[in-house]
């Protein structure tokens, strides 16, 4: 096995036994990036010198017997989490040269563990998109088929894990932005409960929906990363002061007593690809065969989730993105003489079309005369969606569903059709509206050899149940072990 193919857990064990050094591991990952980055395009910024310097420090610590689970492990960070001294662009022209003066809380936590940060992963601009085609910096290609999208918005993070260009990564999920690319790239991805992981230093898109989470090669690695990034942070007033369990303690071999729920509305969803439907059905049967009970549940407001989401998320975005005014940081059009002209020109040149479209949509939804009909109404429907989940979780522990209606689509296929692109988020965005945890794990391949993911959702703060079901499923299958040919 090549060093860059290692999981976090295996790399940790080898580092601990001193069979490999972090510098060897980091070099192997950097060489792998050198070999495949021109085809995949997963990274916006690489800093190999800094990565090797961090690896050297990690090796010194390990030689003194100081090793934590992530010490010396090379990771990729989605380019919307602030990294002190390392450019953080959000894949936008407006932040193209932004160098944060501080670390996001999650980045600080990784650094405290002695993790090695290899670089910043590509994404859709300001995390707005499901394909990475809205990145203003570059295109990312799906490692399983380079003519296809990797998913989005954490497409760079997912592609980097799938192509072994890092050992694990962090992404963020506002409507499916971790789970959908994880599904399309055949890796594991988790969106934790809202408030589980600090958002301090995460560039805001929609503050009531955004959540940071891991993308990894297997379920164990996901639990290991969750152990490090979770927890209360006084710098984020929406982070929740709940104790964090050891997520690896849920990785045990027993599904007895567990009940999974299958939402009847999801199987009736329009445009569900037969390969996806088949793979998910097969996964549900497998989980039942391992001892879990299975019930049908109902989420009656599912058909309205996309509409509610595409009012709420752009509304919050239009407010959050007001800060980009060319004054304190980021791009400024210096040719304009008046302040108003400077604002308008800076924002129009700095933001790409999808971001401008969503700002206009959000501003419209919040504007006088339309507020009640759009933002107000959508916020009420959000309450109904939360109620749906509360009712469903009375009869089951974990809800199973597809992640995306189809496997990864072709680059350019949907770029001029935003509504169709939005509709493909139907299975994932309800979890963000409700604040519940969701996860995607590999559960099969399409007839064209493209990965398909299984989504699992649980009640607030019940990530442990997701780990239990996903770990058992993973033990009984080998989808996660398959690698793309690059």
């Amino acid at each position, binding site marked *: 096995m090549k060093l860059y193919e290692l999981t976090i857990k295996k790399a940790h064990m080898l580092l601990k036994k001193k069979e490999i050094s972090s510098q060897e591991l980091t070099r192997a990952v950097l060489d792998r990036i050198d070999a495949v980055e021109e085809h995949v395009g997963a990274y916006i910024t690489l800093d190999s010198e800094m990565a090797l310097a961090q690896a050297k420090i990690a090796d010194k610590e390990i030689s003194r017997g100081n090793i934590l689970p992530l010490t010396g492990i090379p990771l990729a960070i989605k380019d919307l989490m602030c990294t002190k001294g390392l450019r953080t662009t959000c894949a936008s022209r407006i932040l193209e040269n932004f*160098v944060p*003066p501080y670390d996001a809380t999650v980045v600080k936590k990784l650094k405290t563990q002695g993790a090695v940060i290899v670089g910043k992963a590509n994404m859709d601009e300001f995390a707005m998109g499901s394909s990475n085609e809205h990145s203003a910096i570059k295109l990312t290609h799906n490692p399983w088929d380079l003519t296809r999208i990797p998913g989005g918005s954490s497409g760079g993070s997912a592609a980097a894990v799938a192509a072994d260009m890092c050992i694990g990564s962090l992404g963020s999920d506002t409507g499916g932005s971790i789970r959908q690319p994880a599904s399309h790239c055949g890796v594991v991805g988790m969106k934790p*409960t809202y*408030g589980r992981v600090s958002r301090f230093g995460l560039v805001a898109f929609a503050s*009531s929906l955004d959540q940071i989470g891991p993308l990894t090669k297997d379920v164990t690695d996901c639990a290991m990363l969750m152990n490090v990034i979770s927890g209360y942070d*006084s710098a984020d*007033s*929406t982070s*929740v002061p709940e104790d964090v369990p050891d997520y690896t303690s849920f990785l045990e071999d027993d599904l007895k007593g567990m009940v999974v729920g299958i939402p009847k509305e999801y199987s009736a969803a329009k445009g569900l690809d037969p390969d996806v439907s088949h793979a998910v059905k097969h996964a549900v049967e497998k989980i039942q065969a391992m001892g879990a009970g299975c019930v049908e549940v109902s989420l009656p407001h599912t*058909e*309205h989730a*996309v*509409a509610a989401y*595409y*009012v709420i998320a752009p509304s919050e975005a*239009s407010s959050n993105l007001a800060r980009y*005014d*060319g*004054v*304190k*940081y*980021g*791009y*400024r059009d*210096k040719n304009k003489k*008046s*302040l108003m*002209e*400077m604002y*308008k*020109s800076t*924002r*129009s040149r700095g*933001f790409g*079309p999808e971001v*401008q*479209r969503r*700002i*206009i*949509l959000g*501003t*419209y939804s919040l*504007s006088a005369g339309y507020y009640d*009909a*759009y933002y107000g*109404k*959508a916020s*009420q*429907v*959000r*309450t*109904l969606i939360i109620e749906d989940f509360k009712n469903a979780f009375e009869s089951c522990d974990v809800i199973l569903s597809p992640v995306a209606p189809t496997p990864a689509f072709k680059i350019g296929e949907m770029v001029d059709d*935003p*509504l169709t692109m*939005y509709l493909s988020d139907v299975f994932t965005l309800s979890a963000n*509206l*409700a*604040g*519940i945890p969701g996860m995607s794990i590999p559960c099969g391949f399409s007839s064209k050899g493209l990965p398909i993911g299984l989504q699992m959702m649980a009640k*607030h703060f019940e990530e442990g149940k997701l780990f239990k079901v996903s770990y058992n499923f993973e033990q009984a299958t080998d989808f996660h072990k398959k690698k793309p040919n690059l």
Partner: protein
Amino acid sequence: MKITKEEVLYVANLARLDVDKVLIDKFAGQIGTILEYVDTLKSVDTQGVTPTSHAIFLTNAFREDDEKQSVDSDSALSNAPKKEDGNFIVPKVINS
């Protein structure tokens, strides 16, 4: 058309955007299609339903008012497009 070109321009101005003339027709069409879809929300009975703006039950988040190190002025200004003597410089706001 669900939203006119003029309405898009009006809202764009509120959002301090100067939408490209070439893009405006395309935007009006696309945003119109999205708004038509969003209108399906009207069919949901929400009589008496409390709106949700935050999915987790959290009320006031208090902490001790301790003195802490904050970002120093040089760091805060490090990304400024234009600065002078510890200040952000902007185009003249008030014309005499």
